[in-house]
């Protein structure tokens, strides 16, 4: 053993402050958005990464649990309200957005978060998305896009790539997958950001901005299903080709956003944001004002 200099050593090297790091997590407030019961998603599920980032974003926004409502549909992601501390509404398959709209219209003071999977949001519930966007209801909709139906054990979803073999497409999925980003931009969501489950640190500020946005904010997040998808979105493959939205990107420029969305690289961050579009509540207020003033 060659010797090295014997500098005075203050701290142990093996246990590098694990205890204080745990305390830091507790102090951060991240745990305040968790239920007591453990999530029942499969161990290794990407949803944990999303959930972790979401907690960080809610912490950053300082949103009180009591003022927060999470609405979901059916599917693995639909379980989220059960693992969350706050008000949740676990609705029926594909119909989360209408319920969320009802909540938000009735109680504008609440923060309403909608979560759901790709099947729920783009398949059975796909018809609701454009209309929720059109009304610009002030809710944040996070789409957990894992490209598969996990809860029913691995059938094709609207974002399953063409050619992928699934339980319902044993010879390969014949359909072109939907791209929720292009879709959202095409529907002209007033806010659209993207991300993936592998980097909670990058995802959290994106969620925070979505929550801050006035109007319908749509955030499709790519996430792996470790149980029923071994080929498309795996933890390793999910990371491929991502880079941050370029610093010079103008998020108010829809064409630029669409160009990014159609680029073969994938960008995480805010692609499009139209902060001043009137929300449904704004429009209602307008209507109310017109009605009050009998203006035409």
């Amino acid at each position: 053993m060659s010797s090295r200099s014997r500098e005075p050593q203050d701290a142990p090297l093996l246990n590098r402050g694990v205890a204080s790091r745990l305390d830091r997590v507790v102090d951060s407030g991240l745990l305040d958005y968790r239920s007591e019961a453990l999530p029942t998603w499969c161990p290794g599920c990407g949803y944990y990464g999303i959930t972790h980032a979401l907690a960080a974003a809610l912490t950053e926004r300082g949103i009180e649990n009591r003022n927060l409502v999470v609405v979901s549909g059916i599917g693995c992601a639909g379980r989220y309200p059960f693992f969350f501390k706050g008000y949740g509404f676990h609705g029926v398959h594909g119909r989360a957005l209408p319920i969320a709209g009802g909540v938000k219209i009735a109680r504008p003071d609440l923060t309403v978060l909608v979560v759901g999977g790709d099947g729920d949001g783009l398949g059975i519930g796909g018809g609701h998305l454009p209309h929720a966007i059109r009304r610009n209801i002030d809710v944040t909709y996070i789409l957990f896009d894992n490209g598969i139906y996990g809860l029913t054990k691995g059938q094709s979803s609207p974002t399953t790539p063409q050619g992928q073999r699934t339980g319902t497409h044993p010879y390969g999925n014949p359909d072109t997958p939907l791209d929720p980003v292009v879709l959202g931009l095409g529907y002209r969501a007033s806010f659209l950001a993207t991300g993936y489950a592998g980097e909670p640190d990058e995802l959290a500020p994106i969620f925070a901005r979505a929550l801050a946005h006035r109007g319908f904010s749509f955030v499709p997040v790519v996430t792996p299903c470790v149980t029923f998808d071994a080929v498309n979105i795996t933890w390793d493959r999910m990371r491929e080709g991502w880079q941050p939205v370029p610093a010079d990107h103008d998020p108010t420029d829809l064409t630029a956003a669409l160009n990014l969305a159609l680029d073969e690289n994938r960008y995480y961050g805010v692609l499009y944001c139209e902060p001043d579009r009137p929300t449904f509540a704004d429009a209602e207020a307008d209507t109310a004002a017109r009605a009050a003033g009998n203006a035409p």
Partner: protein
Amino acid sequence: MSDQSTAEGSGAGLCCDPEPAVSTHPQDIDYIRSNIPCQWACPAHTNIPGYILANSRDDLDASWLINRASNLLPGVLGRICSRPCEEACRHGDPDLGTPVGICHLKRVAADGRSLDVPPGEFRFPDSGFEVGIVGAGPAGLACAHSLALFGHRVKIYEMESAPGGMLRFGIPAFRLPRSVIDEEVGFITALGVEIEYGVRVGADVTLADLLERHDAVVVTAGCYSAYELDIPGTDREGVHSGLDFMVRINTGDRPAVGRRTVVIGGGFTAFDCARSALRLGAEEVSICILGVEELLSVTDEEIIEAKREGVAIRSLLTSLEITGSDRVEGVRLARNRLGGVDERGRRRTIPIEGSEFTLTADTVIAAIGQKPEPALAGSGLADEPVFAADGSSNIEGLWAAGDFLSGSSTVIESVGRAKAVATRIDTRLSGRTRREEIVTIDPATDTDRRRDWDFIDRQEMPLLPLTERLAGQEVEVEQGLDGSGAEAEARRCYLCNLKYEIDIDGCIYCRWCIDQCPRECIGLARTIEPGEGYLGETIEWTEHWDKTAGIVIDSSRCIRCGICLRICPTRCIGVRLVNLVERFISDDEEADDDR
């Protein structure tokens, strides 16, 4: 580690420092205690996972050298070690099976190496100091070896005509062939250590003379004086002291034993005497012990083999008297009950009144322990030497080590402690500490251990058939693990010198590692109470999601299977190689560092 480049690319925080580091922090040293229990249990702190890994990579030379770095007698200790390491081995935890055959693997390397001599060891330049050592037993040899490495000139004064001390004169050859001793002593004398035989200190030369001649003198004269049974009748013909009995046999004598031999005592010597008596033709041999078998310090294998050879063990007996006229006719015994624990941590045994009876015997061997020779009479010194526990004495330059200092102990304890004494002597002579224990922390890769290796059964030591054993004292009973046995046994080691860690900052709490973990060593942690020493035992676990501050690996339970590292989706699990090693601190490099 293999994952590092990609992990860095993705920005995931890794808990592994890419750079190697060393630590002397007490908390890091303490980590070894709960995490590499075998190494900590070894009095010489032999790097056991290190050499077993070398074994399993079929690099027996490396394995042997790692062994030699801590204990200079791997061939000897690979046979007759008392194996405190195996008692501590994690593989022997109740839910994990049986300990790794650490000792047997040591022998595999010692017997199977290709090197004839160890390659050049690190040595300090000649210091000009001269050290005299009294006795060429394990402690004397260990002292001599260390002091030679420190650059001192060493001369050993040995009263017998051959080196080894108790190894040669106490332990029977059927357990330890003499050629093994000769070879390993040869590596020490090759460093320039001189041994003068046939010199009895106190008679042929006094300690005062030696202190004149040398800058320091170490007394490692061992425990050559047998405790004697303090009961009537020990002067009858047919009564032997166990140590004398063994020394006679080991110097070529064949003491006569009768048909019924009774051995009194329960240590290795008692068992050696009993088994030797069988080889000398005794028909009925029994060992009378004060307590019960469970409390004996000898290994289970020793007990089983003695019984297989026909030795009977009689428990809970106190000897009261050796009966007979001129010759021994029997031993009068009383039955004991177990009492409390004495100040040395041993169970008391209390004779039961009215339980006396006599066991017929024509030979009685009393092997109840040894003590240092009352020697040093005739030391020629003005003051009576008084030794402290650390080996120093009231007389400048006079030291002691080994059994002479501590009382009868095991070979590995002697070696381990003698090395420490040698370091202290060197510090005194050179004026500074030139050898220390450090923890080295290195980046590591996952091992390629397979999970099914955890279920390999402990490999049994091939033994000579009973019929061939009793043919003679020289026939070695244990044959050594063969190739496949050695390979299988080496695979069993968990390699506890690996440390798997989760970087909380990179964790998404997905619990995949917990799900896949074969032992409940990963869990949801609420907090870690600092406590004393390493964090190990003070993790506060939780089952609540809203209380889970982090997912933590309890290294003191981890069996190093590596499954968590391979499964972690955010690659926030890393592995480091943590070794407790000793290093010499040389002047040159210190000078370099100062620049």
